């Protein structure tokens, strides 16, 4: 048979007609009288607003050394200064993984030389406009630097635009990352920001020097780590492919928890207890459970697995009820592990297969149990850190940590809720709808108060919950309801034919959902899910109300109460606004890029 159908051809790249800047301005800003008036009016308003903002930034009573001095407080709160190497180590681990991931997933922003030129011209022009708008009392150094930055980037930008005629030569991500790092390092090592700090409560300020080497050196190492690990990720990604990506995905689930609870918290393990109880317990669950899973995952044992799983689930739930009434003592770890084990056994038929598949499933179980038990043990062990002002996590680290784990936990919960809400079974539908509507009808602060004040009263005897865990639980419960609604929108966009095709092939409901429906639904939901992630990130500022020390609380109440900076709120608030904006904006940008990339791959 001949292939008579035509194959769609890739579109031929046609060179874009280049318009000169003057032509562009004429066509877009001054094309008609009304357009000209609009351009002038809105330019005036924009300039006025920028002038007002600059007036705030350089107000005579705004003492920016309040921010410069308290940078460490804003970033890591009261983390002991002599242990600060742990912070740098953690940042190194996270950035190393980030670099590897960017390389392994071949993230390419498609940054062209033409765009670089345009951006440089933009930055240059913006700096010069800022220079003109500066209030009279702004420090002279700022004026000089704005002029230098403006002229230099304008010049380089124009040169780049002049000589790169095609303008579409793509710069690799490694190059962009390297260039960005070099620029950042140059600024850090060359520009005299001055050194500020509170040493034992006494303000030390030294202007005219570059940043302290205790900051410069670690940052230099971190940036080198990012650039190198990206390169390594590209090379390893080519060699290992899927297995590297799977390992990295696993790292992003447990890695940050490892960083927080083991590196930053430094648990004082009681090794005799670890050897006598913790390890044997973990081994029992890992090996015994692994063997059971291996046996039940054999084809044809689905019924048996479901039966055993159901029985175990009943027993596991009974264990929790018993814990609530204190009928018999049992380690929480055992209760949690057993519950998870029961659920996994119930789901085993979906992963049934030949020997190698079964071995992989059982291996996954052993790894999961090892990580879980080790984390629970680490969390339940006292920290060795001596912390003067109690919460050991605060500032930016707290904001990012909470936001990250709330997103990580509320996402699967939200997916389950949305599936339940669209399920055919009325009991699931009613329960999930009730949950979602109740949570969405209640303000976040109420949920947080409930979890931090009321929840401890409802917990079984002998089971406490730390403030941080309560806040985390509250946020997760809240965010999951919104995630669920976002995913439901995606689920509704999956056509009926997709369900029918999956059914007609004999896929089970679990397989149909996880292999066909969810991948398509989630793709559609990306913009909304990222919107929710940004909301979670910003709403972490409510931690302050239930006792946490996040960025907002430090800027709004800790700094203004320091004797050296009494009442200095403005610089701190402006600074944290910038931090929030930079992160929220990059998330939104990356989601756009992810969408474009998925669309490209399918060419729909």
């Amino acid at each position, binding site marked *: 048979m001949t292939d008579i*159908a035509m194959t769609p051809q890739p579109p031929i790249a046609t060179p874009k007609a280049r318009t000169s800047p003057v032509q562009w301005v004429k066509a877009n800003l001054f094309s008609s009288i009304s357009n000209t008036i609009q351009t002038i009016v809105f330019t005036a308003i924009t300039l006025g607003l920028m002038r007002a903002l600059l007036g705030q930034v350089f107000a005579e009573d705004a003492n920016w050394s309040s921010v410069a001095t308290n940078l460490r407080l804003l970033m890591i709160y009261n983390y002991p200064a002599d242990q600060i190497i742990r912070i740098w180590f953690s940042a190194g681990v996270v950035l190393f993984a980030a670099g590897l991931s960017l390389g392994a997933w071949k993230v390419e922003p498609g940054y062209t030389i033409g765009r670089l030129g345009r951006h440089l011209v933009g930055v240059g022009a913006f700096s010069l406009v800022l220079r003109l708008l500066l209030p009279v009392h702004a420090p002279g150094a700022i004026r000089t630097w704005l002029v230098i930055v403006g002229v230099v980037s304008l010049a380089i930008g124009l040169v780049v635009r002049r000589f790169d005629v095609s303008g579409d030569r793509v710069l690799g991500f490694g190059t962009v990352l390297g260039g960005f790092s070099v620029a950042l390092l140059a600024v850090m090592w060359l520009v005299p920001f001055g050194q500020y700090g509170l040493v034992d409560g006494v303000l030390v300020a030294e202007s005219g020097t570059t940043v302290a080497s205790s900051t410069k050196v670690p940052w230099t190492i971190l940036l080198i780590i990012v650039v190198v690990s990206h390169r390594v990720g590209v090379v390893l990604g080519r060699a290992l492919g899927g297995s590297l990506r799977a390992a990295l995905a696993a790292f992003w689930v447990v890695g940050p928890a490892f960083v927080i609870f083991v590196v930053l918290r430094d648990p004082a393990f009681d090794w005799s207890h670890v050897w006598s109880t913790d390890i044997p317990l973990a081994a029992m669950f890992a090996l015994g459970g692994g063997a059971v899973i291996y046996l039940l995952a054999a084809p044809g044992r689905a019924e048996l697995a479901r039966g055993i799983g159901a029985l175990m689930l009943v027993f596991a739930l009974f264990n929790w009820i018993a814990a609530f009434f204190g009928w018999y003592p049992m380690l929480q770890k055992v209760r949690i592990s057993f519950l998870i084990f029961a659920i996994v056994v119930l789901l085993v038929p979906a992963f049934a297969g030949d020997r190698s598949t079964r071995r992989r499933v059982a291996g996954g179980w052993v790894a999961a149990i090892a990580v879980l038990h080790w984390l629970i043990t680490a969390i339940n062990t006292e920290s060795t850190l001596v912390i003067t002002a109690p919460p050991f996590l605060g500032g930016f680290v707290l904001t990012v940590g909470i936001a990250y784990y709330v997103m990580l936990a509320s996402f699967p919960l939200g997916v389950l809720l949305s599936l339940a809400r669209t399920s055919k079974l009325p009991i699931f539908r009613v329960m999930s709808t009730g949950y979602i509507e109740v949570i969405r009808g209640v303000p976040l602060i109420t949920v947080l108060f409930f979890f931090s004040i009321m929840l401890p009263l409802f917990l079984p005897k002998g089971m406490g919950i730390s403030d941080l865990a309560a806040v985390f639980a509250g946020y997760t419960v809240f965010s999951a309801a919104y995630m669920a609604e976002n995913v439901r929108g995606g689920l509704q966009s999956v056509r009926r034919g997709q369900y029918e095709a*999956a*059914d007609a092939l004999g896929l*089970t409901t679990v397989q149909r959902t996880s292999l066909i429906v969810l991948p398509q639904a989630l793709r559609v939901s990306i913009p909304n899910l990222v919107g929710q992630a940004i909301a979670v990130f910003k709403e972490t500022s409510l931690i302050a109300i239930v006792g946490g020390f996040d960025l907002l609380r430090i800027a709004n109440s800790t700094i203004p109460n320091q004797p050296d900076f009494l009442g200095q709120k403005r610089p701190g608030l402006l600074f944290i606004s910038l931090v929030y904006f930079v992160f929220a904006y990059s998330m939104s940008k990356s989601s756009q890029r992810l969408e474009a990339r998925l669309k490209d791959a*399918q060419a729909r």
Partner: protein
Amino acid sequence: MSIADQALTEDLASRDDMIVCTGVSKWFDDFQALKGVDVTVKDREVMVVLGPSGSGKSTLIRCINRLEVHQEGSIIVDGIELTNDTRNIERIRSEVGMVFQQFNLFPHLSVIDNITLAPVWVRKKSKVEAEQKAMELLERVGIPEQAQKYPGQLSGGQQQRVAIARSLAMEPKVMLFDEPTSALDPEMIAEVLDVMKDLARGGMTMMVVTHEMGFAREVADRLVFMESGEVVEVGTPEHFFTNPREERTKLFLSQIL
């Protein structure tokens, strides 16, 4: 009845039953879509279902792999009766392939992944084995070079051929076709019909809802004409196209031919 017809009828009678529908009825709310349909498809038989739109022909073949649930009567596929028992439904679905009017390929998976998905997850084949089989099937439907592309990058005819390959990868005993060429541009119909003819010659049991009379005449062993949820007439192509018995059949054929 001609001699050739006689021989075919006797041959069919001697074969095993593959699909047996007895008194199948189906309601959508108040509307009765199937009114006690009796149809038997024999092993290796190609049966074409004809009828005006709304006659229940699509509903009938969708009942056979339980995409629709019939409320009365019985459907037995390869000796297994379709009941609410999930195990029976899963068994029947993995033995009955289905090709849809709208192709219904999975847009987020490449062509090869579309084909290997069910063999790997339902039949528990190894990935390598499934891919080998998938490449053979793509060869058979004439588009091995499209294996790594996504459905959105293919023409309608190519997509439908991938859909057929996807069903065949499960090594089904029966293939159901629900108007497989109705959503295609005219120039792509032939390539899909060629694949189906090939399949019929290879001895596949097929039940095909179609308006392609040329195909019906050339390939079908028997035709069924349905109208408003009832089977009006069953017969060989020769019988149908030369002297149909029922007035309604004659009217329909005169409109469509």
